[in-house]
């Protein structure tokens, strides 16, 4: 490829800023994020709007900033992506198109897909025509990703998939699933896996929506019954799915700072917001709590701000280390752990600021009533995207080189590995 002159970051920033201000809606104080509860018809309308906005970005040369041009992206750099995040801050952008669609799904296709697969799917993803979700976790295996039991059996030029996947965000309105399946039960668990691309809406996939404790039904479980997938929709080698999954998980762990997705800098502050946004939100809470003169409350605001900046600066450092070749990819686990621990503490502080209003508030008081519900869901930040326990294992073993945990499923054919009779999903299971 010839050396092509790419748009400078400042040129790009100016172009993005002008377009965003002319075409996107500023987010008002009444803006409710992606995870806010809403009726299904509203959620579907939001999805449609996100797809429309993504198409608009695509038509104006602003979609998929770090994806190559030949696949519908812009072929630009992390610095461009960061500039774009800063410029779009405060404006409505297609939130549902970002994670896990742009990363890890599209990034996995970009890394491991065939030329045909990339040319077919990536431009559609960039245009908002295909929304992808992860068919990764299973009812019987969450942290133990390589313990997947969805089976794929070869049948001529096709594969037949059976089993169940779970914790798929928004599967009911998405188009495609990136699916980890077992193709060989006679080898150790990491060596019998294969990754497939599966259209979600078909007769042989039943989608069941899981109701979370706040009433949200965005997470889904899918039941696959004799789902036929052509071999041309396989990603990576047969039985070599763990090679793909290792990178897949790396992209998942580093989603908060991936240049492949657009990030909300402000708002709820869980993703390491820009300093200004974090401060505004915290000061509003302090003011509304009526405790602006209470040193204990003021101290907590200082701590909350510290944590937000800490999460952001840590991400910046981890990327600098990875970029300089001084740190392993596994350092992303440090950022993942910090995200869980930091967001958890942050949520606790905000909840305490809310006081009684966080648990019993007037019907129209969204600021404080949301704090109560969000506190109930505090651990989500330490569970979703790989638990903090797994992050601690990875940090100690892969980053620091400490001895690995004893595993009873290593070097044993997977069909001989013991698993719970129920598949491990029953809450009433007895030992």
């Amino acid at each position, binding site marked *: 490829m010839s050396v092509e002159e790419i748009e400078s970051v400042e040129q790009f920033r100016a172009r993005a800023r002008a377009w965003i201000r002319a075409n996107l809606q500023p987010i008002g104080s009444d803006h409710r994020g992606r995870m806010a509860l809403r009726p299904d018809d509203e959620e579907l309308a939001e999805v449609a709007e996100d797809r429309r906005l993504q198409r608009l970005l695509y038509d104006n040369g602003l979609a998929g900033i770090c994806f190559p041009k030949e696949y519908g992206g812009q072929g630009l750099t992390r610095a461009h992506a960061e500039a774009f995040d800063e410029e779009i801050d405060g404006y409505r952008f297609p939130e549902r198109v970002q994670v896990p669609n742009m990363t890890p799904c599209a990034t996995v296709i970009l890394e491991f897909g065939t030329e045909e697969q990339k040319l077919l799917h990536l431009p559609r993803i960039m245009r908002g025509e295909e929304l992808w979700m992860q068919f990764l976790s299973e009812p019987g295996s969450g942290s133990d990703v390589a313990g997947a039991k969805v089976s794929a059996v070869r049948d001529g030029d096709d594969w037949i998939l059976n089993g169940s996947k779970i914790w798929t965000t928004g599967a009911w309105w998405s188009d495609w699933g990136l699916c980890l399946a077992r193709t060989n039960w006679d080898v150790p668990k990491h060596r019998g896996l294969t990754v497939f691309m599966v259209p979600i809406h078909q007769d042989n996939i039943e989608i069941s929506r899981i109701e979370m404790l706040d009433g949200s039904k965005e997470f889904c479980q899918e039941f696959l019954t004799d789902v036929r997938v052509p071999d041309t929709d396989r990603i990576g080698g047969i039985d070599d799915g763990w090679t793909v999954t290792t990178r897949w998980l790396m992209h998942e762990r580093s989603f908060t700072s991936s240049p492949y997705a657009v990030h909300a800098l402000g708002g709820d502050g869980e993703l390491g917001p820009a300093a200004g946004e974090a401060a*505004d939100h915290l*000061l509003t809470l302090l003011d509304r709590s009526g405790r602006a003169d209470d040193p204990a409350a003021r101290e907590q605001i*200082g701590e909350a701000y510290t944590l937000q900046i*800490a999460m952001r600066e840590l991400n910046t450092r981890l990327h600098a280390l990875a970029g*300089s070749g001084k740190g392993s990819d596994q350092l992303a686990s440090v950022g993942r752990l910090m995200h869980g621990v930091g967001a958890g503490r942050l949520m606790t502080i905000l909840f305490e600021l809310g006081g009684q209003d966080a648990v019993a508030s007037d019907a129209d008081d969204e600021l404080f009533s949301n704090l109560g519900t969000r506190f109930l869901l505090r651990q989500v930040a330490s569970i979703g995207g790989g638990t903090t326990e797994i992050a*601690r294992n990875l940090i100690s073993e892969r980053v620091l080189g400490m001895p690995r945990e004893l595993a009873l499923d290593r070097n044993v054919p997977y069909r001989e590995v013991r698993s719970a009779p129920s598949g491990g999903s029953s809450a009433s299971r007895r030992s």
Partner: protein
Amino acid sequence: MKVGLTADQELLVGTTRKYLQDTVPSDVLRQLRDRPDGYDPDYWAAGAELGWAALLVAEEHGGGSVSGQGLRDLALVAYEFGRHASPGPLLTTNVVAEALSRVGGDTYAQPLEELVSGTAVGTWAYAEPTPHGGLGEVATTAVADGGDWVLTGEKVAVEHGAQAAYLLVTARTGDGLTQLLVPAGTPGVTVTPQKTIDVSRRFARVSLREARVPASALLGAAGAAAPEVERQLRTALVIQTAEMVGALDRVFELTMSWLSDRYSFGRPLASYQALKHRVADQKMWLETSHALADAAALAVQEDDERAGELVSVAKSYLAQYGPELCQDSVQLHGGIGVTYEHDLHLYLRRVVLSSALFGTAREHRLRITSLLESRNSARKVQA
């Protein structure tokens, strides 16, 4: 692990590290406990030749950075000081040298020459005793009298106050702050060594009883020194947090090798998940500490509008998790971790000391909230 250093910075770090390793290894550090001054003046003067006291001083006064970013250069030196729990008045001499250099002109040419060459030590008399012990509280007064200034008040935790030839005193004149350079031995100035937890760093109480200095001792304008005092505090915090990170890196290394070398119940400590997970948390604190200390140094260096917040963010984080990381490492070491023979306490002392000077975690959290409020209301006024 630092990324993106220039060749000159690598050289500064390399020569400093080698000098500290050769001159003040840990067995030498342990002996410094018995020295009232805490370090050998020749050690400091030779270190000054490496640039330790010159990085924040203008070239016209014999100073100069190695990268064009003197404070970031100095933070690298401070990091090495932390890694080796090194002796010497690094923080306080640099704060005073920068303050004098910023006055400009020839007024302080002589003291600056002595500070930069390491033949004299300067110290900042800033903190005060209870009931004025809060961060930034100043009750000491500076009153104009004839052509002179008269200082009255008490200063504590004055770093190497008994070794310093020059004391930069922050005092109050009416509603504003005034800074005066007071030579050691000035009548009315009593310097009393204090007890401290560090093996080599020394502190003193400085009593000012109508201590009289000439008009030439005044830095800047009387009653208008608050911005310079804030700047000094930021510089002090950048040096302090960089040093804490260096010490924490060393503590972490000691802990990692201990966990690998020590066997219990027929297996290395490093193989226990209960301990691995604690080390993972330590690694998170450590990397975050690096990130925040570096960000603070950069922000102060570039005079970023958020520099005041960032130094407090870095300090409040380090003051909370630094001592925690050290104490958890002591716990992982067991009994050996609280002996004088082991090196661990050298770093524990330095980190704990720093956690309490120039503002505790709590004080910096409160300061952050106030700074955010000020900026918020300033912005509203603008809009």
